[in-house]
């Protein structure tokens, strides 16, 4: 599904990713772990197409298409979802409006019929209920006044409504208490644990991986994948620290 080859990327002329290669097949959940500053979030933003993140070398292929040639909204319509580490507050735009615009913009790009207001609300309410988010929060401006945990839960509600093929989840576990972690973990499994979908989980810690079992674990250090293994690699990292394992 996703193939990254020898990816080099920089911000303001400063190299962050230095030859990263990675392949994610359909039906797989991959975890990327690594110390602060290794380039984990940069990888997420490069995949999402954030302006200012310049790819200087290498390629990213998604479902056979050159991802780097696509605008961010085209990537979304192609099935890529980026769950933000710090979801953005948008005053004056309600969650409902934001999500309906998003979904219908994607459907439009895929030549699918837009959902009516009523159809959309039904879908959004059901998804909010599954993630135990108060339906009232759908009416509130996007992420404005939400706690850290509520913002992350809102990201999962969005993912559930959009139902992408491929999700990059950047530190989705940060800011979550134990109950919220379980709900979010269950959400990821329910929405994305499918034969035709895959996930790249970017995380610092093992704890989310107790709920979402990865098939493959990578260690990202200094802009490159330095080790790849099974779930046991995450446990080893937790025990021994990045300095030992990543070297």
């Amino acid at each position, binding site marked *: 599904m996703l193939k990254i080859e020898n990816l080099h990327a920089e911000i303001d002329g400063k190299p962050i990713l230095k030859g990263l290669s990675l392949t994610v097949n359909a039906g797989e959940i991959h975890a990327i772990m690594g110390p602060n500053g290794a380039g984990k979030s940069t990888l997420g933003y490069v995949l*999402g*197409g954030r302006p200012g993140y310049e790819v200087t070398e290498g390629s990213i292929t998604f479902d056979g298409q050159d991802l780097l040639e696509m605008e961010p909204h085209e990537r979304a319509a192609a099935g890529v979802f980026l769950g933000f580490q710090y979801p953005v507050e948008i005053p004056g735009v309600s969650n409902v409006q934001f999500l309906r615009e998003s979904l219908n913009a994607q459907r439009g790009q895929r030549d699918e019929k837009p959902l009516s207001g009523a159809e959309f609300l039904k879908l959004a309410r059901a998804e909010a209920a599954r993630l135990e988010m108060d339906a009232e929060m759908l009416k509130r401006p996007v992420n404005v006044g939400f706690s850290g945990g509520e913002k992350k839960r809102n990201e999962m509600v969005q993912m559930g409504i959009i139902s992408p093929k491929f999700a990059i989840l950047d530190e989705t576990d940060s800011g979550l208490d134990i109950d919220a972690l379980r709900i979010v973990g269950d959400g990821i499994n329910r929405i994305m644990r499918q034969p035709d979908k895959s996930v790249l989980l970017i995380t610092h810690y093992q704890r989310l991986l107790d709920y979402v079992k990865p098939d493959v674990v990578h260690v990202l250090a200094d802009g490159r994948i330095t080790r790849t293994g099974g779930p046991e690699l995450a446990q080893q990292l937790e025990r021994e620290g990045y300095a030992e394992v990543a070297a």
Partner: protein
Amino acid sequence: MSVLELPSTRAEAWRWADLGALSAAAAMAPVVRTEHEFLDLPGARLLFVDGVLDEAASTLGAVTFGEVAGSDHALGRHARAGWSLRLDSRTAADPVQIVHVATGAENHLAAEIVLADDAVGEVVETFVGAGWANRYTRTTLGRGARLMRSVRLLQPAGFVSLREEADIGEAASLVTTFLGAGGQGSRIDAQLNLTGEGAFAEYGGALLTSDTQAQECAVRVNHAQPNGSSRQVWRAVAAYRSRASLAAAVEVARHAQKTDGEQSLRGLLLHRTATVNLKPELEIFADDVKCAHGATVGELDQRALFYMQSRGIPRSRAQAILTHAFVADVLERIGNETVRAAFEGDADAWLDAAL
């Protein structure tokens, strides 16, 4: 009118006025009269073509015509005769809709709105066409009277200048919302006096400018009595090489204690070649007042734009949604749903064209 009679931009109150555009508008060759539909509202409908009533297309209701007590204002003094809405005490009238069509050159029209105690009125005005439309509006509100006014400037070209003077009596309320969403230059120039205790004035709007256009407001609110409150909430959105200027002043007299004044002036630059000028001014002589004032200019939040794009919304659409949200809280102040929807539609049409 001779150019020599225009005020000078060397005077502080006129420093951002685009008087060159005003003169050019006054010299515009005749253009074909544009049609403009009235909104689907009950009540009086007045169609003015170059400041002259088109009787066949109008229903006057309670509106009469005559001389209006003059203003000595530099632009307002050119408008001496016009329409008058007078409501007796404890009466409520259906909205008065006014469409001003300009067909080139200059036209001047005065208006007088006098609401007796506890009367309730609503006026909706729309400017279309081309040329220089100059208006003087004098408003007097008796005790407990309430006036809601909504004014939209939709001339594709030319200039609209509005001089507004209002005396707001005890516990009376004036709520006025402007939308500048045409291609014309404009100046909204107002002096509001809260002459009665506990008077309320809300006076604000959204000026949307594009190309090389300049629009501005210059508003002074005078709190002459205690317990009054005023809100001046203005939003400016400027694209390309345009200029939007917001100057809002609050004066609080020595004995006007417990005054609650709010000024919120915010500008949004859609392009770095555009200009937004903001000038909040406070002159407070009383010692027990609350006067909040804020003035900010910025660009669209790049993080919000990327967040929306990452969910599938094309960049231009994301810009339109964010810009709409920026002006929405001003237009939401319009109480009449039909009017509010029309104004929001005009703002959206402007955004679609500008982005």
